[in-house]
C-alpha cells in the first residue's frame, strides 16, 4: 500500500523532467527498450512511480541508472512523453537523494547555486594561489617555483581524500537505499563474486552496446555506436588524466620538456585529444539536438562539458606556453586551469553530473548481485519441488 | 459509343491500340509469360498428389506467399481444388480437365 503524493512530479520537473505527465502508461517505452527486463521494467516503472509520487520506491530503485539514454523510448512514444528525459531527470533526482549534504539537490534545481559555487571555488583557488604562491621567475618557466610541487601534490591528495569521502558516503547511502530497503537478504559473498562487474562496466559500459545492437535502422545504429565510442574515449581520457594527476603529478607539473616517447607526452596528448573530442561532441550535439539524448538539455548538461572543455583548453594552453617558454603566461594559465579544475572535480564529481561515472556501474553491479541472490533463493525451492 | 464493326476493322483497331499502349503491352506480355510458366510448374507439381503451399514453393523454388497467391487465383478459376489437410496446411491438387 502506498500513499499517492502529487508533489514528486513537480519535484522531478525541477530536476528537468519534461513530458512525464503526458504518459498514459501504454508500456511502449519499456517494451522497446533493449535493456529493460521483468525485474527492471523501465522507463515506465520510473514514470509510474513518479506519477503516483511513490518517493520511497523511487529512491530505492536502480532502474534510472541502468539506462544509457539511447532514446528509442522517446522516439517511439505515442504521446511524446519523453521517457528518456524522465530517466535523465530521475538520475539527477537520485543523485540529489544519495547526497547527504544537500548540495546536489541545490545544484540541480538552482542554476544560481551551481554557477555561484563554481565561481566561488574557482575564486578561492585563485585567492589561495595569490596569497601563497612562490616567487615568479620570469627568465624561464619555473612552475615548480611558482607553485611548489609537493604543496600542490598535497593539496591534490587532500582534494582526492575529500572526494573519496563524499563519494564513499553517498555511495553508502545509495547502497542503503537500493540494497537494504526492500528487505531482500543478500549474502555478502555475492558482493565479492560479482565485483568484477563493477570494474567491467565502469571501464567498458558494456550494456550500452546492447542499445546499438538491437537497432534495426542503420543510421540510428551507427549514431548509437558513435555515441558510445566517443563516451568511452572521453571516460578513458579523464580517467587517465585523473590517475596521471593524482599519482604522477610530478610528470605534469614540471619544468622539463619530456621527449616524445615519454608517457607524459603521448598519454597526455591522447587524453587531451579525446577530452576535446568528447566534450566538444557533447556540446555540439546539444546545439544540434539531432539525436534523442541531446534534444533536451538541463543546465547541468551544459556546465559539465563546458568545464571539461575549458579545463582541457587551459591545460593545452599552459602546455603550449611552457613549450614556447612564456613564463608569466604559463603561470596565469596554470592559475586559470586550476580555478576551473578544482570546482569541476570538487563539485561535479560528488554532487553533479559526473557522479554517474560511479553510480551507473555501481547500479549494474548491484543489479547483478541482486539477481544472483534471487537466483540462489529460487534454486532450493525448485530443487525441493523436484525432490517431491 | 460502340458501333458495329467488321472483324477486319476490329483487328485494325486492336493493332492501332497495341501501338498506342506499347509499353503496357510489352510489360503485360512479360507478365503473361511468367504467369504461364508458373502455372505450368505449379500444375506439374500438383498433378498427381495434393501438396501444401510450402511444399509447392519448395518444388518450384518461389516464395511461399507468392505461390499462395497463384494458388488462390487457380482455385478461383477452377484450375485446382482443395484436397484435405496436412497438419495446419490445406492441400491442393490440379483439377480434372473439364471436357
Amino acid at each position: 500500500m502506498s500513499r499517492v503524493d502529487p508533489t514528486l512530479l513537480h519535484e522531478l520537473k525541477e530536476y528537468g523532467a519534461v513530458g512525464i505527465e503526458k504518459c498514459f502508461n501504454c508500456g511502449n517505452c519499456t517494451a522497446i527498450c533493449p535493456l529493460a527486463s521483468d525485474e527492471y521494467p523501465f522507463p515506465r516503472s520510473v514514470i509510474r512511480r513518479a506519477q503516483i509520487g511513490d518517493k520511497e520506491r523511487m529512491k530505492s530503485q536502480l532502474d534510472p541508472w541502468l539506462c544509457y539514454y539511447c532514446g528509442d523510448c522517446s522516439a517511439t512514444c505515442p504521446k511524446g512523453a519523453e521517457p528518456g528525459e524522465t530517466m535523465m531527470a530521475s538520475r539527477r533526482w537520485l543523485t540529489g537523494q544519495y547526497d547527504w549534504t544537500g548540495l546536489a539537490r541545490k545544484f540541480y534545481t538552482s542554476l544560481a547555486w551551481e554557477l555561484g559555487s563554481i565561481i566561488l571555488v574557482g575564486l578561492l583557488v585563485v585567492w589561495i594561489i595569490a596569497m601563497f604562491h612562490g616567487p615568479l621567475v620570469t627568465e624561464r618557466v619555473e612552475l615548480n617555483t611558482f607553485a611548489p610541487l609537493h604543496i600542490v601534490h598535497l593539496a591534490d591528495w587532500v582534494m582526492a581524500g575529500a572526494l573519496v569521502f563524499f563519494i564513499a558516503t553517498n555511495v553508502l547511502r545509495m547502497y542503503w537505499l537500493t540494497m537494504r530497503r526492500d528487505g531482500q537478504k543478500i549474502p555478502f559473498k555475492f558482493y565479492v563474486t560479482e565485483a568484477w562487474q563493477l570494474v567491467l562496466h565502469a571501464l567498458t559500459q558494456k550494456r550500452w552496446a546492447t542499445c546499438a545492437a538491437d537497432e534495426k535502422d542503420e543510421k540510428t545504429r551507427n549514431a548509437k555506436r558513435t555515441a558510445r565510442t566517443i563516451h568511452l574515449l572521453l571516460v578513458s581520457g579523464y580517467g587517465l588524466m585523473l590517475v596521471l594527476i593524482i599519482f604522477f603529478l610530478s610528470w605534469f607539473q614540471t619544468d622539463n620538456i619530456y621527449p616524445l616517447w615519454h608517457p607524459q607526452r603521448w598519454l597526455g596528448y591522447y587524453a587531451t585529444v579525446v577530452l576535446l573530442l568528447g566534450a566538444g561532441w557533447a556540446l555540439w550535439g546539444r546545439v544540434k539536438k539531432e539525436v534523442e539524448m541531446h534534444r533536451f538539455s538541463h543546465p547541468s548538461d551544459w556546465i559539465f562539458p563546458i568545464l571539461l572543455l575549458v579545463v582541457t583548453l587551459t591545460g593545452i594552453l599552459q602546455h603550449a606556453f611552457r613549450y614556447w617558454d612564456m613564463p608569466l603566461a604559463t603561470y596565469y594559465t596554470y592559475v586559470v586551469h586550476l580555478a576551473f579544475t578544482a570546482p569541476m572535480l570538487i563539485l561535479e564529481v560528488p554532487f553533479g553530473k559526473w557522479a554517474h561515472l560511479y553510480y551507473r556501474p555501481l547500479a549494474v553491479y548491484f543489479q547483478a548481485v541482486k539477481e544472483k541472490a534471487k537466483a540462489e533463493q529460487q534454486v532450493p525451492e525448485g530443487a525441493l519441488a523436484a525432490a517431491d | 459509343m460502340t458501333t458495329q464493326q467488321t472483324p477486319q476493322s476490329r483487328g485494325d483497331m486492336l493493332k492501332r491500340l497495341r501501338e498506342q499502349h506499347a509499353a503496357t503491352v510489352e510489360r503485360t506480355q512479360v507478365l503473361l509469360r511468367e504467369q504461364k510458366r508458373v502455372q505450368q510448374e505449379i500444375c506439374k507439381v500438383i498433378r498427381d498428389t495434393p501438396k501444401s503451399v510450402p511444399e509447392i514453393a519448395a518444388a518450384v523454388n518461389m516464395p511461399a506467399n507468392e505461390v499462395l497467391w497463384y494458388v488462390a487465383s487457380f482455385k478461383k478459376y477452377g484450375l485446382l481444388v482443395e484436397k484435405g489437410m496436412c497438419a495446419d496446411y490445406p492441400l491442393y491438387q490440379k483439377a480434372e480437365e473439364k471436357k
Partner: protein
Amino acid sequence: MPEKLKIGVYTCYCGGNISHTVKCEQVAKVMESQPDVVISRTNMSLCSDAGQSQIEQDIKELGVNRVVIGACAPSLHEQTFRGTVMRAGLNPFLYHHIGLREQDSWVHTCDCDGATCKAMHLMAAGIAKARHLQPLEPIRLEAEKQALVIGGGVAGLRAALDIARQGLRVVLIEKSPFIGGRMAQLEAVFPTGEKARDLLCDLVKKVAGHPNIKLYTQAEVTGVTGYVGNYGVRILQHSRGVSAEDAQALMTACKKEVPDEFNYGLSQRKVIYQPFEGCYPQLPAVDWENYQGEPISLNGGQPIVLEDAPQTFDVSVGAIVVATGFDPYEPRQGEYSYGELKEVVTLPQLIRHLALMKSGEALTWNGHPVRDVALIHCVGSREIEGVDEPHEDGQVNNYCSRVCCTASLHMAVELHEKFPALNIYELYQDIRTYGRGHEDYYRGALDGGVRFVRYSGEERPQVTPAPTGDTHPVLLRVKDSLTYNEELEIPVDLVVLAVGMVPRQIDDLVNMLKVSRGTDRFLLEVHPKLRPVETAVNGVILAGTAQGPMNIQESLSAASAAAAKVLTLLGRGKVELPPFVAAVDAEKCNGTGACVEACQYDGAIALQTFTENGKEIKRAVVTPANCVGCGACVAACPNRAIDVQGWTLSQYEAMVDAIGMNIVDLVEA
C-alpha cells in the same frame, strides 16, 4: 379457370451462412421434384442484385407465379423480396419466405445431414403453403400529416424542427414546465467548448417560432390508440398556474422552497419558479407536486390558493417520435459512500456547483477548500453481474454510458484551467474518448498533470472517511493496474462520481406504445443497421437517448434521422399496412361472438347486424386497421369462419402435412 400453379423455389447459400451446414444443392434438387415446381435454384446471395434479378427473370420468362425462398429470417429480407416479386409484376404476397438460416443452419451447425433433411422439410412445407397463397392487397390508409414528438430535450426539439420545416405539423409535448431537457443543465459542451444554453437557445428559438409546431409543456401522454398514419393520442396538460401579469408578483410572494432539481439539489428554488435565466417558456410555472395548495399573500392582500386545472385533449398524428431522454444514474445510498460522505458528489452535481460559483472564487466544497479531487469513472455503468449489486429490477447496468469518459476528462481539463493548483485524479477502467476531438481532452488532462489510476470492474475503488488527523477528509483505496496492481491510497477533499445514463421512468408510455426495451432497459430499435431509429411498432420512432446513451452530437444526428423516417412515412399522406389481418367468411359465420371475446385489441372485431333475406343476422366484422393478425379469433371461432389472411388454416394444414412427410417420400415425390 384457376391459373396453373408455377412455383419457383430458391435456396440461398446466404454467403455460406446456410450452405456451410445445409447441402443447398441437394435441397434444391429435391425441391425440383415437388408438385407444381417449375424451377428450383440456389444462389450465393439471393438478396444481392444478381439474385433478385434471377427471380425477376424467372417470373417474367418462365411464368413463375408463386415464389418460395429459403434464406435468412423473414424479418430481415421478406420486404426485400416482396419488392423483387412486385417489380416482376407479380402480387407481392404470392411469395413465401422460409428462415433457413435462423431455424436451421445456425442451430444445427454440427449436423449437416440432419440440417439438410430439415431444410428439405421446411422448404417442402413452404411449397405446400405456396400452393394455397392468394393475391392480397396491402391495407392503404390516409395518413395524418402530423407527428407527435414526446420530449422537449435537444433530441425532441431537433426532431420536431426537422419534421416541421419540411411541411408536416408537429405536436411537441414536454412533461416538465420548461423545454431544453438535460442539455440546459450543462455549461460548456465538448468538443467545442460552446455554451450549452446558447446552442439550446438557438434551437428553442427556431422551434418556438415555427408555425408548424405546437408546443405543450407540463403535458404527458395518457392514452394511445390507432396505428401508423392514424394514431389517436390523449394528452393531459397541467395548467401553468400563473399568468403573465401576476407571475413575477406571485413568484416573489411565494415562500415555500424545495430542493432545485435543476441544480441536482445543490440549491433551493421556490415552488413557483423559473429554472434558469433564458428558459423557455419564460413564464414561471407552479410545481404542483410540491406546491400542495399553500396560500400565497400578494402584497399583504388576501391569500390566494392557486389551482391546477389539468386539461385533456386528443391529437391525431401519423407517427410518434419518442425522445424521452435519460436520467443521470443516481448512485445507491453508500455506493462509493454516496449519501454517507458529504464529500462524494456526482459529475452533474459538480457541473452545477461550478456554474453556481462566482468567477474567480476558489473551489470549495461544503465550506472546505478543495485541494485534491478524484473523479471515478463508470459509476452505474459497465457493471458486472455477480460483482455489482443488482438494481431494483434485478439487473445490472452492464452497458457503457458512452459520454462519461469525455465528460469527466472535459471536467478535469476545466478544473485544471480554473484551479491550476488542484491535484486531480481520474480513476478509470478504459478511457473511451472515441469521438472527434474527444482524445484531445485526454491529452489535455494528461498535459495538465491529471493523474490516471486504472481500476478493474471486478474490484472497484473504495471510498472511506479518512482516519482522524489525516490531511484530507476522504481516503480512496484502489488497486491500480498501471502500478502493477498495487494498492494505492489517495487522500482527497472531493470525490466526483462520473455517473452513467439510465433511461427515464417511462413505463406507462412504453406500455401504451407497446414498444420494447432492450436488455439495457433503453428502448429497442428494430435493427441497428437496417432500421436504426424505428421500433418494432410501425410509426413509433426513436430519437436521442431514449434509445441508449449518446452525446449531444449523436442525439442531434439520431433526431434528424428520426425526422427523415417520419417524413418518409407520412410525406405522401398515405400509409400501407400489411394485409395479414383476420378475414371473416360470411358464409360460415353465424355470429357466436366468440371471436369478439377472444380479441385483445380495441375495435378490431365486432358483431354487426345485417339484414339478409329479411332476416336479421349477426356477423363478425373486422376493422383491418385495428387488427394485428394475432389469430386469437381464429382459434376461438367454432365454425372455422375466420382466417388470418396470408396464414390461413388450410395453409397451415398443408404445411403440417409436408413437415410430417417421411423424408424418403419427400425425396421420391
